[in-house]
């Protein structure tokens, strides 16, 4: 079976700047692939080359076995697209009208009212696009990508600007799409989004692929971490540091806000809570913090530097 997306040795430069330096990747039909990376990593460039908006300098790109530019007419009905830079729809059109217009391009469109409901815009059908909030625009943009029943969708930062609630329902939507056999390529800054959704993750940095695999694979190596909690200010932290496993550290970041760093494992948490209990301190909002994307990058680049 053809890969849904197959990229080999892709290179793209803008003048003197190299945006993509020779990446290869493969998206299997029916999977969710997340392209993770900081701003400027080359995610949008990669996706827009797949969508046929930009041309590569070299390398090959096959979308559903076809060429994104030469076979655009055949591909467009099959591929749903969500641009990074907004809805890209008529500003003066109402949300429902715009969705209806996009539905009219498809032979078997989704029911527009049901789709608006599904993205949480059921009440906003009559609202002009220009009056929608940022998060609402993102949801409309998602609906526009889906209305034609595509088999493959490219979503560039689909949940940027959404509130946490909307984000969660977007995730559920994407999960039901996967369950129904839609292939999804999305870009994101959020590790939790990739963790929740992605079957595979490709971490891009500076136009290269810094790492790929499942998120667990990516974050398991060297699981440094952080725990934050709130407690009365001025705790004697030396005792805590002594109680914690070797290599851990505790500081009071600001008055009453504490940060423990080290290898966050059950032993560390047990030691921390035992010490708090011993002090008669209630550690409020105790939270194990995820490593941020930047942390993953630091680990990745440190690892490759040590090997070379």
């Amino acid at each position: 079976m053809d890969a849904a997306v197959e990229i080999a040795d892709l290179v793209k430069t803008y003048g003197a700047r190299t945006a993509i330096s020779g990446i290869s990747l493969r998206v299997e039909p029916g999977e969710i692939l997340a392209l993770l990376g900081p701003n400027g990593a080359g995610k949008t460039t990669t996706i827009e080359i797949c969508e046929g908006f930009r041309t590569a300098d070299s390398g090959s790109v096959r979308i559903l076995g076809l060429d994104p530019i030469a076979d655009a007419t055949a591909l467009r009905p099959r591929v749903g697209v969500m641009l990074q830079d907004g809805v890209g729809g008529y500003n003066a059109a109402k949300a429902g009208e715009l969705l209806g217009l996009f539905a009219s391009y498809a032979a078997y469109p989704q029911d527009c009212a049901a789709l608006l409901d599904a993205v949480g815009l059921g009440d906003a059908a009559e609202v002009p696009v220009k009056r929608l909030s940022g998060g609402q625009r993102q949801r409309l943009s998602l609906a526009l990508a889906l209305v034609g029943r595509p088999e493959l969708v490219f979503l560039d930062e689909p949940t940027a600007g959404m509130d946490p609630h909307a984000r969660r329902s977007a995730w559920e939507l994407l999960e039901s799409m996967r369950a129904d056999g839609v292939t999804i390529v999305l870009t994101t800054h959020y590790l939790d989004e990739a963790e929740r959704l992605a079957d595979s993750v490709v971490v891009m940095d500076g136009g290269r692929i810094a790492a790929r695999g499942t998120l667990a694979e990516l974050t398991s190596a060297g699981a440094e971490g952080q725990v934050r909690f709130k407690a009365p200010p001025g705790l004697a932290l030396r005792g805590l540091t002594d109680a914690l496993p070797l290599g851990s550290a505790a500081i009071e970041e600001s008055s009453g806000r504490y940060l423990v760093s080290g290898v966050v494992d059950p032993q560390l948490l047990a030691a921390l809570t035992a010490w708090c209990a011993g002090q008669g301190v209630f550690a409020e909002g105790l939270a194990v913090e995820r490593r941020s994307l930047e942390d993953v990058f630091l680990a990745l680049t440190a690892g490759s530097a040590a090997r070379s």
Partner: protein
Amino acid sequence: MTRTAPSGSMRHNPDAGPRMDFTPKPAAAPLRKMVLSQAAMEFRLIIRNGEQVALTLIVPLLLLVFFNLPMLYSLSDRRIDFVVPSILALGIMSSAFTGLAIGTGFERKYLVLKRLGATALPRAALVGGKTLAILLLEVVQATLICALGFALGWHPHGNPLLAVLLLVLGTLAFGGLGMLVAGTLRAEVVLAVANLVWLVLMFCGGIALPLSRFPDGVADVLRLLPSAALSEGLHRILQDGSRPGWGVLITLVIWSVGGLAAAARFFRWE
């Protein structure tokens, strides 16, 4: 369309509506359907846009009344018989050039055209939809202009079908130029250029002032403008009851072919 019942409560978000069926079934709609819905959308957007309505409907009607007042200059013939064909030509320029250029220029700026390029809508269908919307706008416009003209005592002559043919030719000529401007300049520049050209052509392009008022040499050059050809043709038919003349037709055809070809060649979609 199937709406399945919400699946397991873990997956179902009560605010997210019923579980949709996303099973892929991609196919483009028939071309005719796309063109018609595109045209309907574009027409609704024009009618909803106050500036477009002012430019294409209200201003021409106001100018019809204004130019009919014997203030600016005197005419030997019945004034209204000169003014109505002029305003019909002005209307075409408003809709097919200035309005189209500004509308399309901002669609480009706001990435509407880019986004539409990622849908099943072929570019030909997009252009077709725009053309239909402009033609529909022109029908409304010409109806209002003629109605007001009749109310002011207008007596048209000549073959109305010839006049319609000329209006369509004028639409092609100005539409091509409008798309050329919209597709090559920044939206803010399009706005300025499209309005300025409209004004200049109204006064120096044979619409508001007969070209006979310009010095001979100048008039001969101005006659080659699309506005002048359209206006002259309409006056010959509707005012004099004669034919538009080959010069007029050839001029408009050249502008149409040149403008549309240049637009097709140089138009940038994003």
